[in-house]
């Protein structure tokens, strides 16, 4: 089972995304084989990344393009989210989040999105053309979620 959709309006992409999720539920698009918990984790992970793009991605003067591909295979799902922003240093941002959230006595209100995604997904990879920033390349985040694994997020709140 596969779903593919594109978004181009950063002002409405999150609402559009959740409208899409509702349609998938109504159509039982991923039933079977994904169970409820796995589907909700998938939606959360996709939301966190799209939220990251909306808040922080630099699309410069180009029309934003976010393409979502979701493929269910057995009892796991693989997601790919591609965008045409200028990209960013994923590892550096992840390290910064870790320092701000984990290595602190008073956890901040924000800045846990990447950490949450790492914790509740598997095989997460951020593909980016080099060198950064990219003038015309596309960046792609991929991850999978397995129904057999019940993740939990050990991040200070």
């Amino acid at each position, binding site marked *: 089972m596969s779903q593919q959709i594109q978004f181009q309006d950063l002002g409405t992409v999150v609402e559009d995304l959740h409208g899409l999720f509702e349609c998938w539920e109504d159509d039982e698009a991923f039933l079977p084989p994904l169970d409820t918990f796995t589907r*909700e*984790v998938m*939606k959360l992970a996709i939301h*966190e990344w799209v*939220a990251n793009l909306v808040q922080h991605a630099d699309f410069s003067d180009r029309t934003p393009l976010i393409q979502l591909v979701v493929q269910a295979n057995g009892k796991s799902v693989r997601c790919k989210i591609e965008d045409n922003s200028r990209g960013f240093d994923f590892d550096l941002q992840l390290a910064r989040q870790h320092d701000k959230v984990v290595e602190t006595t008073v956890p901040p*209100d*924000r800045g846990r999105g990447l950490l949450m995604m790492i914790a509740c997904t598997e095989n997460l990879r951020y593909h980016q053309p080099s060198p950064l920033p990219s003038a015309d390349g596309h960046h792609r985040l991929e991850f999978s979620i397995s129904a057999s694994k019940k993740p*939990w997020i050990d991040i200070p*709140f």
Partner: protein
Amino acid sequence: MSITIQNVAADTAVVCIGKALDFRNAAEFKQACQSRIDGGTRSFVLDFSGTGILDSTGLGAVFSLYRQLTPLGGQVVFAAVSRPVQVVVQLTRTYKVFRQYPSVEAAQQQLLSRSTSNGSRAGAA
């Protein structure tokens, strides 16, 4: 995505989260709760019925409220938790921090009965 708050007692408020508590309205949530805290509210019932998304920023705002209320003897409880929110609660083991009630009414009843009980004990002393 408007969040509504209604005081059901002098020190207890019900916050209707609505469709989402996420990066888009977390600041609104915090401001709305802060104004109630300034007015003496100490107990907050977060009504998550129909909530489709509680993301990391939204949950961070809830914990910020919790950290602010705890030194004041206040509390935050969850009510009518929707399926997506329940998954977040399980993922983050937030159930260890925030008591959950099946409905807003059940939460109100418990909080208000505790408030009355505390008042009785204070009166007896």
